[in-house]
């Protein structure tokens, strides 16, 4: 309990630093680009156009037939996956990037992974404009349940922070993680039902293992965040009980684990970066 109190007090004292670091990342990301922050919208929009084109012509058979509004279905998957990918990848190297600071000044170290995940969330929220554009363009109705999408988004934020804390810790000691993680996220992308409907995928045989896609994918937490978001925004449904507890438990458990690992090793960071 005392530990949590100390965390909170520290956090309150350094909230402006968090703000400023996010502001810094923002400035540096868009400095000297003509369109600036507009890229947060344009990039997912253009990606969406490319992928819709590819999966409507080249791989038209792969996406399944039950999806009512494929462009919107696709961009929700893209946006949430990009958020997770950005957040974890950038918090992974956050401690290394903060080396010049934490070698000279005392700052609570979890600020840095936290800042990266927050920054990715800010970007993600900006890119929701792209989602709105696609929805308007395809004439998708705006359901009142869309406000419920905040739940999968916030729990995904917590989940990403937990993963980010673990990755940041590991990377301080072994730089290999950075290379491994990009391979892992590529694999994860194909198993997150971003551009297909898993219930129509049937059973695959991969390296001699037969895998029922619609069952297998349920072990992937990202699938649940994306599916819950789609249920609220695209299908106009209230989140199912399964969605609520799986999203919640995965987020809280991962964050606890992340904080535990990070705390255990954080005093050694400064000797290794």
């Amino acid at each position, binding site marked *: 309990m005392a530990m949590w109190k100390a965390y909170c007090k520290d956090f309150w*004292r*350094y909230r*402006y*630093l968090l*703000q*400023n*670091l996010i502001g*810094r990342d923002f*400035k*540096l990301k868009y*400095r000297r680009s003509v369109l600036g922050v507009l890229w947060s919208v344009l990039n997912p929009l253009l990606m969406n156009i490319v992928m819709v084109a590819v999966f409507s012509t080249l791989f038209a058979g792969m996406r399944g037939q039950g999806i009512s509004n494929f462009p919107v279905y696709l961009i929700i998957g893209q946006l949430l996956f990009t958020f997770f990918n950005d957040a974890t990848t950038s918090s992974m190297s956050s401690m290394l990037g903060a080396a*010049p*600071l*934490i*070698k*000279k*000044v*005392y*700052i609570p170290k979890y600020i840095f992974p936290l800042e990266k995940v927050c920054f990715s969330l800010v970007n993600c929220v900006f890119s929701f404009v792209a989602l709105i554009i696609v929805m308007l363009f395809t004439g998708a109705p705006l359901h009142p349940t869309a406000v419920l999408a905040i739940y999968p988004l916030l729990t995904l934020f917590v989940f990403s922070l937990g993963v980010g804390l673990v990755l940041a810790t590991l990377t301080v000691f*072994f*730089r*290999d993680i950075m290379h491994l993680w990009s391979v892992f996220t590529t694999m994860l992308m194909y198993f997150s039902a971003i551009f297909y409907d898993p219930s129509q995928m049937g059973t695959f045989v991969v390296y001699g293992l037969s895998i029922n896609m619609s069952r297998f994918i349920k072990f992937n937490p990202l699938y649940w965040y994306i599916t819950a978001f789609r249920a609220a925004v695209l299908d106009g449904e209230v989140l199912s009980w399964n969605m609520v507890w799986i999203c919640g438990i995965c987020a809280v458990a991962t964050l606890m684990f992340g904080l535990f690992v990070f705390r255990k090793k954080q*005093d050694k960071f*400064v*000797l290794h970066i």
Partner: protein
Amino acid sequence: MNMIEVNNVSMRFNMAKEKHESLKEYFLAAVQGKLQFEEFYALRDVSLTVEAGDFYGLVGLNGSGKSTLLKVISGVFKPSAGSVTVRGTIAPLIELGAGFDFDLTARENIFLNGTVLGMTPKYIREKFDEIVEFSELRNFLDIPLKNYSSGMVSRLAFAVATITKPDVLIADEILAVGDFLFQQKCEKRMQELMSGGTTVILVSHSIEQIERMCNKVTWLEKGHVRMQGPCAEVCAAYKELNGHAQEAQA
């Protein structure tokens, strides 16, 4: 009142004979039993007490552990043994440009560095002009810091760190960079802070500066405390060392 208590602090570093920065190397070495470390004590059983209002000097040759001690006091390093207690806020000026992002402009950096030191944006806005005035950099506010000279960076760093009236100011060799006019200005500022109740710890290789400003001095040698006490005594002994060195050379 004791502002800083350092009790029997040791700081041990494991100097790996080879650095393993990849998993494969590490596991190979671990399996073969080749994970060897050379222990290196940067500080060994160091104790000191800084009282409120002290102007405390640290002297010693290169590698004697002065900077390590400052980092232990400011919380950057956690000591391997012993304990450190600090009362109040610390403004560390340990290395130049700590908390600066060199891609950002000076204006942006004032806010970034200020919040690193725990100030609120409102407070920084209030004091902004004072900081700029002191650092004499008004014409260069919107230039990225990477285009600054080291003297300019140190002026900015000093101006930001001393704007608050911290309880403890830690200054490591920061005055060596600026020109003599700015050095005088910094000394004046530190004395102002002192009279306002700030305790200062100063590391300097300029023994004259230590003699001029400090009241107590600790002399570190290879991580041990060689001598501790009133400024004049310790400085005299330290200067004698210098004398011996010159004799040995001659």
